[in-house]
Structure formats: C-alpha cells, structure tokens
C-alpha cells in the first residue's frame, strides 16, 4: 500500500515537473525511418535536428526515435511524442503520410510536418526539396566526364521523385554530350549496401564510368573506388570520405534552415500550414564541393548552372522537351508546372527502357 502510494506521489511530482518544463521549452520531435548513422537520408535529418538544438539552445528540447517502420508503429511513436508534450513533430519519410494525418486529427494543438508527402491538414504541413535541381548540375558533370558515354543510374523505386531525378540528370547530360546513354538499374530499396554494391558492379561491367545513385548508402562509392576510373556523386549526404575520387561532387539535403524556421514559427505562434518545395535557391538542396578530379572548365560550367537555377533564371525542365514516346511535352521556352513534376511518371525522350510497374 505504502509502496504504491509512494509511486503515485512520485509519478505526480514527475508529471508536474515535466508539465512545468514544457511551459518554457518548445519540444520538437523527429521520427526517422533509418538509423541516424545511415550516412544519408536520416543522417541529414538528424543534422537538421542538431542544428535546431544549437540555434535555440535552452529554449528547445528535441527528441527522436530512429528506425521506425512505416505504418502503425510510426503512428504509435508520434502519439507517444504528442502525449509527452511535443509542440512540433517532423515525420521524415513518405510512408509516414497516413499515420501523420491520423495522429494530427487526435492532437489538434500539436503541429506536424511531413516530409515528401502531399496530404495537409490545419495542423499538418508538408515539405520536400527540389533534388532535381541538383540532378541537373550532376547530369552536366556526368555528361562532360564520361568517356564511355554510358552513365549508370541506381534507382530506388520507380516513383515520381526518382523518375524526376533521372529525367533531370539525363536532360542535362545530353545537353553537353549528345552521345550519352543512361543505364538504369532498380534496386527496390532505399538503403541496402549489399544490393547497392551489386547494382553498381553490374553497371560498371556494362561499361558505365559514371554512377549516379538514388539510394542512401556509400556502397556504390566503394564499388566505384574498387573499379578505378569510375566517378560517383554523394547522395543525400556529402559522402566526402570518397573525395576526390570516385566522389567528384554531391547533392546534399540541408534541412536545417527549414527546421529552424518552423520551430521559430511555433515559438512565435505564427505557424500555419504550408506546402514547401524548396531547392538550391533557398538552400534546401546543396551541391557538395566539386573535387579536383573535374577539369576547371567543367567545374565552372556546373557552377554557372547551379547559380542560374539558384537565382531562378533557369528551370531544369525547360522546353523544348518531348516524352519518351516522342509526344510533345514542353514547347520552346515553356517550363514544367509543379503539378506535373510532383506526379511525374514518364521518361523524357532519349532514355531507353521502360519504367517498371
């Protein structure tokens, strides 16, 4: 009897204490799909979380749960965060979309931010990055650097996000090198070092001397290093440990500015539902240091393209462009609208092979 009442008092005291703390601090939760040490996608989101902590210091408290499967487990983790007083929760994988909406309904006062999805609510915003802008820069370097004119591409899943990247890289590789061909391998995973390494080896055996990847591990970098004379690009994270060769540059997800801005908005009470899709200009997509393995004039060309995209004077999907089947897509000078880009399910003219489904 005594023991239980003691516990009850302790629990109450604890509850009061955390309640009081929650008053002063803004609590921000992060739900990760992979381990924070994946070196790619989740690693960068976690860097964003650390940036929030550093920026606000004592004014915030952040919590995170890693390797959360998409589905009911994610729903439970989000609910747990909301119950324990989180004011703002970032859910950082596409598969968290429906769970985020479900939990948001139950906690109307908690703000939710879902990465890469499309469902919003009064307390749910969505955000994503225009990685295809980085792919344009990557494609330019790839087109210039390839000697075999074969560029290998490791796709994860045939979804709009990935197809957009392939198209953007291809368009810009072709622009500087009309003979370039893309060989695409679908790994059907976001993170599986063994499969990614196999895919890279297959592509290299088929003559590719540039490997682009839309998967998160550094295994393709290692495979390229072992093969020699093959160049790669860091994906999601800088992967600079493979510079200057094979990694000649990278596309870096930089979530920190967004996470800081949204946390600030919650503190100010100015948070509102938004649909954010930022690119190089806003700093959400970064281009990693272009290494010395790239000739100076190619580097200059790539950086000029980057600047043009950043300033908004150039859109990576500018006509004239045709679809793979030869039908017209964009007329001369026309740029793609976001709706088409968001649901992109076709290759542009010149890419060989079909999108699997």
């Amino acid at each position: 009897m005594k023991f239980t009442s003691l516990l009850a008092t302790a629990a109450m005291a604890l509850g009061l204490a955390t309640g009081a703390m929650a008053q002063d601090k803004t609590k921000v939760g992060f739900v990760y799909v992979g381990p924070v040490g994946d070196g790619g996608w989740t690693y960068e989101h976690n860097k964003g979380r650390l940036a929030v902590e550093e920026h606000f210091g004592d004014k915030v408290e952040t919590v995170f749960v890693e390797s959360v499967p998409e589905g009911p487990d994610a729903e439970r983790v989000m609910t747990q965060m909301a119950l324990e007083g989180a004011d703002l929760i970032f859910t950082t994988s596409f598969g968290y979309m429906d769970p985020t909406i479900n939990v948001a309904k139950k906690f109307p006062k908690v703000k939710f931010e879902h990465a890469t999805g499309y469902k919003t609510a009064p307390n749910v915003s969505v955000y994503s990055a225009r990685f295809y802008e980085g792919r344009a820069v990557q494609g330019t370097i790839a087109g210039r650097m390839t000697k075999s004119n074969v560029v290998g591409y490791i796709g994860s899943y045939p979804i709009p996000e990935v197809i957009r990247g392939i198209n953007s890289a291809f368009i810009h590789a072709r622009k500087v090198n009309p003979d370039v061909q893309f060989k695409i391998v679908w790994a059907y995973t976001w993170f599986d070092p063994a499969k990614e390494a196999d895919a890279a080896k297959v592509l290299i055996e088929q003559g590719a001397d540039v490997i682009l990847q839309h998967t998160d591990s550094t295994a393709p970098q290692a495979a390229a290093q072992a093969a020699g004379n093959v160049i790669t690009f860091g994906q999601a994270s800088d992967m600079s440990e493979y510079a200057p060769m094979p990694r000649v540059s990278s596309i870096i997800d930089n979530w920190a500015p967004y996470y800081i801005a949204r946390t600030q908005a919650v503190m100010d009470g100015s948070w509102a539902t938004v649909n954010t899709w930022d690119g190089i200009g806003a700093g959400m997509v970064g281009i990693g240091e272009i290494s010395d393995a790239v000739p100076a004039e190619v580097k200059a060309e790539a950086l000029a393209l980057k600047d043009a995209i950043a300033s908004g004077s150039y859109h990576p999907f500018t006509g004239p462009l045709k679809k793979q089947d030869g039908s017209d897509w964009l007329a001369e000078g026309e740029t793609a609208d976001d709706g088409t880009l968001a649901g992109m399910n076709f290759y542009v003219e010149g890419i060989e092979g079909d999108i699997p489904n």
Partner: protein
Amino acid sequence: MIVLEKRPQPSRAWSMATPLVAVLATMFFGGLLFAALGKNPVEAIGTIFWEPLFGEYAFYYRPQLLVKGAPLVLIAIGLSLGFRAGIWNIGAEGQYIMGAIVGAGVGLAFYPMEAFYIFPLMVIAGALGGWAWAMVPAFLKVRFGTNEILVSLMMVYVAEQLLASMSLGLLKNPEGFGFPGSRNLQSYASAHNAELIEGTGMHWGVVAALIAVIFAYVLLNRHMTGFHIRLTGEAPRAARFAGVKPARLILFCLGVSGALAGLAGLFEVSGPSGQVSIDFNVGYGFTAIIVAFLGRLHPVGILLAGGLMALTYIGGEIAQGSLGLPAAAIQVFQGMLLFFLLALDLLTNYRIRAARKEVA
C-alpha cells in the same frame, strides 16, 4: 571442474523457470548495457517494462500492446505446431505478406461498394493467400524432399518483391498522384478492420489470436492430430509405428501456420496499417519465431510471450523517445532475451555438477 550431466528426463521445473530466469538475466545484462551507454539502468528498464503498463499514458499503451502482440501470437501459434513436430516454417513473414496482398486485393476489388460480406471474404482470402504460399515449401518437401527451412525462407524474398510490385502497380491507389501504396482501407468502411470497442485496441486480429490459442490448446491436448504432432517431435520412430503419415503432417502443419500468418497479415493491412505499401512488413513473421520459443511452443506460453515481446517493443520506443536510447540498444536487448532463453534451455536437459577430481 564443472561437468554437464544429461538428465534422464527433461526437468519440468526448469522448463517452466527458464523463461523467467531468461527475462531476469536480460534485465540484468541489458541494464549493464544501458549503463555502459551512460543511462540510468534502473530508469531504462523501468521505462521499458513499467511505463507501457502503469505509466502516465498507460491508457494509450495498453491497447497498443494488443495491437502489437496479436499478430505475433497468431503467427507464433501456427509456427509452434510445426516446430513441435520438427517441421520448420521460417517463412511466416512471406505468408504474412501474401495474406495481406490477397486479402486487401479482394477488398479493393469491391471498392467503392459497401456490403457486409466484403470483410469476411477478405478474411478467407487472406488465410488462403498465406496457406497457398506455405504450400510451396510443403509440396516441394513432400514430393521432392527439399528442405522446408530454405524454401520457406527464400519465399519471403519473393513475397517482398511481389509486395513492392503490387504497391507500385496493380494495387496502387489511382488517386495517389503516382506515389506508391494502395488505397487506405481505414477509409473504406466495408473493408476496415476497425476497433470493436473504441479505444481498447481490440480488433478482429486480437479475437482471432485468442481463438487460435484455444484452438491450439485443444488440438494438442484433446485431438489425435495434436497427439501425432507431439509424438513426431518427441519420438519420430514411435510415431512411424503409431501410423503417423509424415506427408500429411507436413501439409497440415505448414498449411495451418501459413493460413494463420496470412490472417495476421490481412488483419494488419485492413486495420492498424491500412494500406498495402512497399514497407508493409515489419518483421512480425521472424519475431514470431522468437515468441514461439519464448513461449515454450505451448499455446498459453505463446500468449504470454507475445505480450512480453510487445511490451519490449513499445517500452523500447518510449525509452528511445524519453531517454534517448539508440534503437540498436533496444534490438540488442531483445536479442539478449532469445539468447538467454536458448542458453538456459541447457538446464532443462542437463544438470550442472562439480566433478570430483579423479585420482590417476
């Protein structure tokens, strides 16, 4: 010198006690692990085992224990029948996926029609999907003598590829803007495996798991097939003399475990999960193997083991969120549980003795 001496008969007392001792050992060594990571071990263990049941938010976590535990128990019950007879179905994960795909497929085929018979049809289809997937290793074993461990495991990878294909192709939500994943069955009333009583976590999968426990108990203790299963596992030669037909037993055990895994998948996809998606499966089929052994292949034991496993999952997540423990530490903790259980199993069959030094 310490020697192991084989017991003439497995010790009943140790057989009952090892799961408890294993849990205690896991708590102790897990505590050391957490301490090494710089966390208060008592607080960490307390968070994992206490918070979900009696903590401040237990009203939310208790129903979640049912949601998490039900598929584990349902699958483990099926597996335990085969395991008792020495028939090793390692591919429950694949059968779980197939149950979900086939069951959800039947439901989605009716969309947007509303009718009372849709959900029952999905349940039947889910069970058949899992059953059919398990029949592949069963048939190959009976007909060609292949190893069911390998075949059933390989079939998991085939099922995973099929799941990805379904999420991106045939079952993809036509209103999903080209993104992968099926329609959400939670918003399709006739196909939704909703909570039977709001806020309790009780859905049809939980009911099915409880029925499976009772069914397995009766089967093993009161039925000829159950007797044959036990006999084959304990004394294969005697079983042959008693007229047990091995082929029939293989088909039965793999079939039942496949059907139950399929049911678990169906109840999950139509309820807590809601949609067929690329990463729908989260390892219930493999974790259920641990649950089956943790529960000593006994129906009631499995029920308790499923609850315990669910507790470590949910408590583990809480510990991650509130104490900042890494996910890997929680996984090591769960791994320890099986490790200690298997290690301590030795005591069931062997006695530890201090051997007297022999004079040369």
